[in-house]
């Protein structure tokens, strides 16, 4: 069951998500051990596969380090729901095929520890604990295409494979 880890704060930045002292590696498993370390040192011990991070405005601001996405993903987190996302983090998530949910309003309807079920296609968050449904706007089509391909490079790889086939 997916549990919500709610951080009721704006501007949670990449230094908090994965501090630069761990950027000497890009090994996801290693990075996951330090996920959210400077925000909530206990996070890695309580997060379970499929859990969800919930936060305020401007999530992921600061550095361009994609390590932030990798750390979150490898920690087992299925998605991040935030009021808004910082620009580079947003790009990095899409490019990695990692679905994130922008929820400008109604975020207060999710409390720490709530059990959530997300229907990505329908744009629906089912808060089982509170017994309510919360609608969200699915990502735009171009982003979904990248995510469905499994990330930007997979999309490009497929495109160039098609291109080669077309020529032959």
């Amino acid at each position, binding site marked *: 069951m997916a549990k919500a880890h709610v951080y009721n704060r704006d501007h949670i930045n990449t230094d908090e998500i994965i501090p630069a002292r761990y*950027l000497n590696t890009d090994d996801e498993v290693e990075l996951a051990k330090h996920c959210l370390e400077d925000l909530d040192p206990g996070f890695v011990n309580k997060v379970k596969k499929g859990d969800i991070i919930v936060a305020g405005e401007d999530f992921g601001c600061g550095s361009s380090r994609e390590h932030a996405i990798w750390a979150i993903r490898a920690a087992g987190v299925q998605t991040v729901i935030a009021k808004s996302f910082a620009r580079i983090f947003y790009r990095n998530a899409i490019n990695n095929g990692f679905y994130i949910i922008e929820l400008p309003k109604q975020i207060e309807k999710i409390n720490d520890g709530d059990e959530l079920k997300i229907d990505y296609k329908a744009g629906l968050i089912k808060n089982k604990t509170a017994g309510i449904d919360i609608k969200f706007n699915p990502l735009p089509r171009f982003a979904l295409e990248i995510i469905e391909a499994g990330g930007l490079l997979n999309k490009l790889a497929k495109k160039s494979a098609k291109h080669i086939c077309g020529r032959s």
Partner: protein
Amino acid sequence: MGMTITEKILAKAAGKKKVTPGELIDAKIDIVMCVDVTTPPAISMLVEKGMDKVFDREKIVVTPDHFQPAKDIKSAELHKRLDEWAKRHRIKHYYKIGRAGVCHALLPEQGHIRPGEVIIGPDSHTCTYGAFAAFSTGVGSTDTAAAIATGQLWFKVPASIKFVLKGSLPKGVYSKDVILAVIARIGVDGALYKAMEFTGPALTEMSMEARMTITNMAIEAGAKNGIIGFDETTKKYLDGHLRGKKNYTVYESDKDAEYKQVVEIDCSKLEPMVALPHLPSNGVPIGKCAGKAMDQAYIGSCTNGRIEDLRIAAKIFKGKKVAIRTIVVPATPVIWKQAMDEGLFDIFYDAGCVIAAPTCGACLGGFMGVLAEGEKCISTTNRNFVGRMGHPKSEVYLASPATAAASAIEGKLADPRKYM
């Protein structure tokens, strides 16, 4: 309706006559900047997907900088991966140790930045190059991988906010104080997804070095890019630095271009600013925070590690002694040599500072000046997030090189104007 300079550059890069904010485009990339922490993962991705190629070996500029010289075995491995890749693809502009420097100071200095071009790099402060009337933005490793292999990248055309920097800077007030005041005004997400276009008489009076400090910190307001129009100062800098291809196209915003917002800042009324922990938007005039005890001063980084910054600091340090540990990091080998030749190193040495090799180092809590629990650092860098320069319970105070130098002498936050 006319177009802004950002829209014009992106339209050209996308092969279109016109683009409008919100539009998705595929843009041609002119320069891909590559550094040590974020490029090796991009290389691994390309190898893994069977796409290990470079779109143009002359349009990729490589410099290790974040953890260089290697600070530990793991970062040495990152450098090794970068080095093997650069050699494998015969990357033409590869700055190895001895010539490597903090990327955003190095690329303009070595003549890789031209007006009207599109530059990307896997470092958020890549927005610095917008000072040269170019479109420049920071991206992640995957985007960098895509750009390395294809020379193209998708972008959403940003809406623009215009910042009019009015008046003239008073004595002791610098471009760093201006950008800290701007960010304090609009907040760390005040320009989220947008272009920050800077203009006005105070800007016209600034050197290219000073202008780069302003565009460098556009990301600290959440912006996609920061940009400054071309003028005589830009031309003079380029005449002295461009190598190889000397031609470029100058774009400027139309008079009827559309802006989401226009923000006016009267620079003549500004005071030296300090951004208190833990957000760059926590800027206050020095008068409101002077006297707070510090443990370290740090003068360097892509924001303020250029020769002009070192000269400003040296002028204040001359004949004085520092009261706290003070680390000076010239951003590139050329700046390092210049500072030495000008006698600035003697002043730093006499004052009791240590001079480090060019690196991003402690700005991001990497090495060469990391903070212990509870320590406070006055720093000329760009971010003061929790744990940015070391222990999660350390604190970073952002300021100009002048304010950092004055504070180093007193061991507490100090107004630089009394040393002028």
